């Protein structure tokens, strides 16, 4: 292609891309969102048309541009190039226009523009030569997807598009006739733009004839007719001509299909009426026609208003309307378009009965329909029932409004849900609490007139309940607001008002108590042990009842009846966020309450006495029955509370170790007996060399915590604890660090030493330390937020702000905690006052304020739709959850739940680790500082309103209004300035890096630059591309390449391989650290601005500089990996250093020689790891059976030997191949036939989906002749292998489904499997380090060799010998000169 043509093509493509992009960015995207909104409201149509029109205009514009730009000949030439468009060209242009992403659509637009300018003759001639010829070469048959029968090749669709451009009908028909119809490829394309109506009819006829000829079974014919009849462009009378085909192909269902197709093809009023009247349809058929016909809403309404139609339909069958599309349904129901009110009423009844959420929303939103509902008692009852069962997220009416409209028909259950904490204005609530008519129903208490179906045992004295409520209201509106009427029961009245007031403050506590009371009743009603595993519905019901979090639902198997502890733990969770000093006595009270309630109700006896009861439960059953609890001393309560706090019944991995209590005296000796038990267990763990068990016992004894809880604590609070320096919480910080240290211990000896020297943490200290964890980070955050003192007040005129607000400009370095008010739901604006809205809207019912941390180098946050509030002063306890990514938190009013793992970091590292569009800091909405609460401040108040320089005028006005309402300043951020400032800083750092000669310093600077670059880039993810382009990754890549080149040059110059190796590892760490942040933040690395740095490419380049074979070696990694595992007491170390690794490696290679060839070294790696993990599991599960362990090892080694393809199941092939592979071993008697069968069984067992003894398992036992006596033996081996394989799934996923584990030890092995995998992943690095050492050694040897050879040669070198002789002479003469007079000396010198 000549250069002129290339330039022209570039120009056309560039123009088309730009225009298309503009069209999409400016208009289509907005239109799309409007279309979505329309669809949500059940309307559609108009905007779709508008979108179509926009594209037509665009097409015309492209065509005009091409016509103006090119001569006719140039058009033909370029057209020919496009026709020859192939993958090569596509790749070329994709690379060239990467930022636009080439789509077939775009090419089509260009083609269309071009084709309009050239003659048809030329067009088809060019197309035949260039394009269709290729299609013919490929062969149409090959393009058909054998499964679906549809064309799969993109080429074919392209050719259809080309055909559609052809203006000469004869030419086009000729092509269609020859290439498509004659070959029977019609049905798939009847709706393509190629066919006009006449061709289509002809094509269908030929297609049907072809079907007949080929004796097609009817599917193709069905498709043809369906497509034809649903084609809107074909007139009704033309379709009628196909009736014969129906009769021919579908004689049995002729009437049904005929009607069905015809209904679907009716698209106007006249056709519909004609069909209905002329065909004399029965009622059922008529219903079907009305349902399926595709006529406009007004035509349908016309039909419904026509007496001739109505008379043919029974009234209740009008519910078919509800099956029509949303727009029609809406118009018919709410615009009173039907003249017959009886029908209308009937319709409404049907609508309510079958209403979905959309319809309920519509009914509530429109006064007409709402009035209609309210007028009719039956409607009201049915509608409100529907309303409460719906799952609408955003309801159009407030709860107060619902109450007002429906209060007389609400059931007690519905009423109580409206009266939950914070659901209604409290003065309204009080009014109805005190109104006898409603009070009984709200509290669901029996009353013969007002609530005859109420609970007769709940409250005996309603007046007492009313007086308590009234007192609460008068004492503190805030308490009253969070008060849950469910706690009004006779049981709780036994406690005094103080207790009611105390728990009123904590919605979760109230909820937990209510649930607990429910379960007490529930269990007493059920009265028998429930079978949770076999009754999942019941199980889910109870879980829901107790508001248990998803973690528990997903992973735990609850033991019946042990709900109480969990519920009370939930209570503590809420309380401990407030004031731990006050909590401890209250915790004791909770234990007391529990004991009292248990002892007054014997329902737990049967349950507790069975297996698995905890110490506390046993105590309740064994000791507390009939006991006067007042005789329990405070010290005893303290011990009981301590036990009670660990009474977590839902975990089947409960590592907390306690001792039983059988009498009150046992409480006094509890600590001592537990200590003794722990010491015994510790010695046992040392003896068995079980390091994790030993750690667990250590943690139990000294920190009163189990290993599982400790790991979770570290995961949540320990990731960044080293960056935190806060004296205030030093004890808690030290404790987390110590936990990290203990959990990382791998040596029993080290642990033993620590066990002997450590001191026990007291219960009170432990409680306070553990409860302060989130506060450490809350305190640090509050301290590090940029305060006003660091900001510069600016003249309001400078940025056009009114004088009513004070304005500050953000400094060069800042960290702000911000909340975008409308990001995830609209802030209801009350009386046009932001302050009032913030403090009084429904939103105040939610605890959490979702905030983001932004900084000068990270501006990412949730979308700003209204005002952006900033906080620079919060209580230490306010930071409830935190993570450097979106936590997907949900406020369910009672508490905040995170959809992802909570991980606390220091503020700076939150920024440095945020690789998503924003991070999330969940802040408690209630003001927690007593001094402010005492002043009547209920909610946390914002400190300032943020205005960005590029905010729209309306957002800016809202921000000003908000600042005025609150009386707080505005903080102005000039985004362009901040970005430019950051870009300048990075540029300066890059310059400094280039100018630095020292490699080590260069890498340090690069680390800072790369971090700052990524921070800025991620922070601008959703920003304008011109801003993003300030941080172009190519700059960083150039710098990285420069550093690597310098390192390589220096290595080549000095042969100092060790220095090179050290620098490489340092740089690798920087690259991998940045890359790993994307994994931590669940985020993809793909960004829009330029390419991203792919760490692996650079790492490989640096490693291969030392040895280019590092990545090409096809050898077992196990031996190398084993050498890197230090000899300690960890399970991995024990396995790798005791197993015969070289034998395992040799066996694996021997058994799987074909596998490596077909699937590469990764397949071998997987088998090696599975074998190692199976080895560990086998030793734990079958400790005294070396033979079984050997069979397990062989099974693991042979598990994949039959793998021939990438199909997921190949176990039976492997089992079969195993027989051949082990044939020799069998012959020489190394293994028996029975052993072989067990190995084969274990391998094939891997493809079973269930662990149950079902038919498949039985068949497998039979297949390998395993008798009942050996079932367990064989199955144990198979299960060990299956768990090893489950653990190996870590290579594909970040987390495992632990429910799939069969063996107990597998849970413990997750970190082991992860470590093993990491060591395999770092194999290249291990090899690199080895090779660096080898090269350094070689170089030292070279030096030594040179030194020796130099010495050797110099011994005989003439020059050296001469120098030596001269030296002797000089020495001799010097000596002589000292013995001669002055005059002689001169003589000697002359000579």
């Amino acid at each position, binding site marked *: 292609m000549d250069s002129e043509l290339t330039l022209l093509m570039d120009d056309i493509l560039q123009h088309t891309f730009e225009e298309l992009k503009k069209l999409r960015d400016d208009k289509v995207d907005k239109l799309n969102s409007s279309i979505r909104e329309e669809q949500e409201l059940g309307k559609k149509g108009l905007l779709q048309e508008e979108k179509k029109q926009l594209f037509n205009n665009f097409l015309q514009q492209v065509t005009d541009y091409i016509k103006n730009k090119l001569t006719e000949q140039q058009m033909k030439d370029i057209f020919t190039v496009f026709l020859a468009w192939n993958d090569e060209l596509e790749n070329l242009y994709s690379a060239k226009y990467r930022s636009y992403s080439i789509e077939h659509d775009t090419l089509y637009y260009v083609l269309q523009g071009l084709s309009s300018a050239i003659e048809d003759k030329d067009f088809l001639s060019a197309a035949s030569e260039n394009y269709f010829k290729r299609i013919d070469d490929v062969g149409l048959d090959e393009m058909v997807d054998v499964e679906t029968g549809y064309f799969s090749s993109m080429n074919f669709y392209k050719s259809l598009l080309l055909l559609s451009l052809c203006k000469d009908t004869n030419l086009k028909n000729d092509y269609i006739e020859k290439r498509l119809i004659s070959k029977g490829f019609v049905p798939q394309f009847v709706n393509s733009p190629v066919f006009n109506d006449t061709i289509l009819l002809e094509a269908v006829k030929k297609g049907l004839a072809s079907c007949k000829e080929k004796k097609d079974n009817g599917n193709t014919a069905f498709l043809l007719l369906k497509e034809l009849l649903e084609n809107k462009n074909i007139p009704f009378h033309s379709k009628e001509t196909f009736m014969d085909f129906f009769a021919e192909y579908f004689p049995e269902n002729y009437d049904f299909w005929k009607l069905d197709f015809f209904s679907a093809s009716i698209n106007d009023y006249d056709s519909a009426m004609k069909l209905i009247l002329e065909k004399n349809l029965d009622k059922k058929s008529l219903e079907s026609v009305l349902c399926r016909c595709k006529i406009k809403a007004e035509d349908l309404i016309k039909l419904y208003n026509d007496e001739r139609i109505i008379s043919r339909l029974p009234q209740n069958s009008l519910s078919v309307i509800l099956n029509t599309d949303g727009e029609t349904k809406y118009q018919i129901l709410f615009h009173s378009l039907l003249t017959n009110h009886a029908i209308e009423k009937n319709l409404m009844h049907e609508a309510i009965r079958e209403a979905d959420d959309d319809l309920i929303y519509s009914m509530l939103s429109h006064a007409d329909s709402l009035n209609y509902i309210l007028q009719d008692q039956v409607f009201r009852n049915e509608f409100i029932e529907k309303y409460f069962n719906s799952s609408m997220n955003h309801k159009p009416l407030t709860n107060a409004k619902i109450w007002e409209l429906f209060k007389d028909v609400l059931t007690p259950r519905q009423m109580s849900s409206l009266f939950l904490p914070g659901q209604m204005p409290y003065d309204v609530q009080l009014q109805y609490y005190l109104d006898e008519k409603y009070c009984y129903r709200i509290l669901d208490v029996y009353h013969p007139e007002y609530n005859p179906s109420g609970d007769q045992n709940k409250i005996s004295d309603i007046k007492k309940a009313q007086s308590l409520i009234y007192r609460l209201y008068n004492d503190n509106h805030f308490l009253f607001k969070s008060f849950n009427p469910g706690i009004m029961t006779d049981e709780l009245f036994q406690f005094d008002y103080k207790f009611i007031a105390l728990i009123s403050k904590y919605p979760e506590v109230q909820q937990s108590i209510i649930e607990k009371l429910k379960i007490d009743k529930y269990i007493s009603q059920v009265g028998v042990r429930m079978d949770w595993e076999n009754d999942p519905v019941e199980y889910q019901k109870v879980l829901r009842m107790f508001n248990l979090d998803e973690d528990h639902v997903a992973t735990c198997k609850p033991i019946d009846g042990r709900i109480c502890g969990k519920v009370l733990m939930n209570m503590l969770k809420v309380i401990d966020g407030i004031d731990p000093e006050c909590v401890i006595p209250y915790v004791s009270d909770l234990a007391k309450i529990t004991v009292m309630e248990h002892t007054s109700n014997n329902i737990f006896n049967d349950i507790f006495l069975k297996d698995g009861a905890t110490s506390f439960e046993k105590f309740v059953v064994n000791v507390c029955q009939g006991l006067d609890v007042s005789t329990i001393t405070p010290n005893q309560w303290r011990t009981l509370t301590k036990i009670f706090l660990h009474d977590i019944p839902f975990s089947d991995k409960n590592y907390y170790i306690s001792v039983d209590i059988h009498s009150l005296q046992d409480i006094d000796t509890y600590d001592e007996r537990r200590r003794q038990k722990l010491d015994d267990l510790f010695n046992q763990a040392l003896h068995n060399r079980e390091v994790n068990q030993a750690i667990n016992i250590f943690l139990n004894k000294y920190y009163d915590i189990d290993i599982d809880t400790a790991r979770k604590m570290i995961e949540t609070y320990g990731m960044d604890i080293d960056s935190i320096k806060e004296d205030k919480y030093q004890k808690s910080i030290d404790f987390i660090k110590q936990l990290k240290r203990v959990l990382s211990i791998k040596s029993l000896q080290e642990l033993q030493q620590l066990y002997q020297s450590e001191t026990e943490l007291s219960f009170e200290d432990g409680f306070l330390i553990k409860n302060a964890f989130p506060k450490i980070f809350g305190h640090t955050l509050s301290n590090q937020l940029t305060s006003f003192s660091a900001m510069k007040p600016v003249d309001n005129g400078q940025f056009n702000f009114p004088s009513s607000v004070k304005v500050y400009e953000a400094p060069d370095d800042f960290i702000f905690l911000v909340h975008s008010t409308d990001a995830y739901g609209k802030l209801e604006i009350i009386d046009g006052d932001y302050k009032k809205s913030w403090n009084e809207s429904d939103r105040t019912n939610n605890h959490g304020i979702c905030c983001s941390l932004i900084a000068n180098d990270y501006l990412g946050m949730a979308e700003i739709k209204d005002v952006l509030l900033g906080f620079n002063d919060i209580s230490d306890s306010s930071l409830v959850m935190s993570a450097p990514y979106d936590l997907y938190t949900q406020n369910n009013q009672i508490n905040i739940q995170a959809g992802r793992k909570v991980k606390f970091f220091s503020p700076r590292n939150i920024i440095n680790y945020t690789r998503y569009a924003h991070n999330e800091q969940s802040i408690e909405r209630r003001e927690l500082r007593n001094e402010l609460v005492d002043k009547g401040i209920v909610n946390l108040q914002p400190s300032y309103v943020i205005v960005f320089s590029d905010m729209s005028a309306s957002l800016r006005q809202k921000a000003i209004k908000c600042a005025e309402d609150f009386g707080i300043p505005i903080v102005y951020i000039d985004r362009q300035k901040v970005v430019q400032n950051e870009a300048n800083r990075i540029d300066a750092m890059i310059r400094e890096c280039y100018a630095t000669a020292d490699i080590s310093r260069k890498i340090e600077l690069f680390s800072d630059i790369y971090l700052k670059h990524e921070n800025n880039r991620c922070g601008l993810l959703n920003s304008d591309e011109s801003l993003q382009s300030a941080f172009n990754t190519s700059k960083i890549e150039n710098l990285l390449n420069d550093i690597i080149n310098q390192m390589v040059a220096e290595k080549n110059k000095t042969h100092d391989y060790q220095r090179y190796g050290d620098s490489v590892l340092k740089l690798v760490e920087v690259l991998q650290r940045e890359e790993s942040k994307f994994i931590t933040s669940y985020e993809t690395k793909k960004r829009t601005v330029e390419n991203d740095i792919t760490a692996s490419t650079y790492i490989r380049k640096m490693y291969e500089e030392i040895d280019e074979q590092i990545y090409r070696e096809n050898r077992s990694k196990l031996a190398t990996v084993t050498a890197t595992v230090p000899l300690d007491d960890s399970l991995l170390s024990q396995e790798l250093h005791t197993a015969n690794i070289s034998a395992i490696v040799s066996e694996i290679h021997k058994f799987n020689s074909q596998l490596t060839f077909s699937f590469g070294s990764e397949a071998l790696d997987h088998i090696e790891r599975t074998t190692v993990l199976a080895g560990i599991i086998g030793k734990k599960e079958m400790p005294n059976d070396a033979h079984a362990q050997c069979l397990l090892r062989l099974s693991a080694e042979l598990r994949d030997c039959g793998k021939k393809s990438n199909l997921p199941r190949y176990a039976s092939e492997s089992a079969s191949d195993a027989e051949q592979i082990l044939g020799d071993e069998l012959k020489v008697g190394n293994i028996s036939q029975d052993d072989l069968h067990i190995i084969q069984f274990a391998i094939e067992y891997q493809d079973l989906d269930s662990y149950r003894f079902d038919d498949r398992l039985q068949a497998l036992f039979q297949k390998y002749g395993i008798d009942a006596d050996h079932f367990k033996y064989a199955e144990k081996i198979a299960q060990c292998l299956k768990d090893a394989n489950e653990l190996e799934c870590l290579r594909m996923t970040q987390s495992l489904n632990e429910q799939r584990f069969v063996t107990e030890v597998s849970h413990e092995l997750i970190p082991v499997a992860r470590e093993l995998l990491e060591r395999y992943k770092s194999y290249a690095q291990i090899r690199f380090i080895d090779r660096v050492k080898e090269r350094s050694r070689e170089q030292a040897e070279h030096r030594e*060799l040179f030194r020796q050879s130099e010495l050797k040669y110099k011994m*005989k070198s003439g020059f050296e010998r001469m120098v030596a002789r001269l030296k002797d002479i000089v020495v001799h003469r010097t000596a002589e000169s000292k013995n001669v007079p002055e005059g002689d000396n001169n003589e000697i010198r002359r000579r």
Partner: protein
Amino acid sequence: MKFVEDNDFNEMIENFKKLSVVEKKQLTIKEIKNLLAVLYALNSQNDSDSKILFNREIFSFNEEDCSEEDFVEATYAYIYSIKESLADLLTTFVDS
């Protein structure tokens, strides 16, 4: 002209070749300096005023951190220095 080969010499040069460029430069300069020192010592024996021809390239030369250009320039300067010292020695030899 007669060329002779020496196995020990060849071995030494082969081992020299395996060293890094930096080491080679260091050794080369070291050998030049040794030669210059010998010449100087010989000249000193004959003339208390003996001297070494010096130049900025030699003076500022750092063999541990030098470019190829620095090295060639310094070597060139050293050769002239050697030539001059050798000339002094030969003068004494011819005169005597």
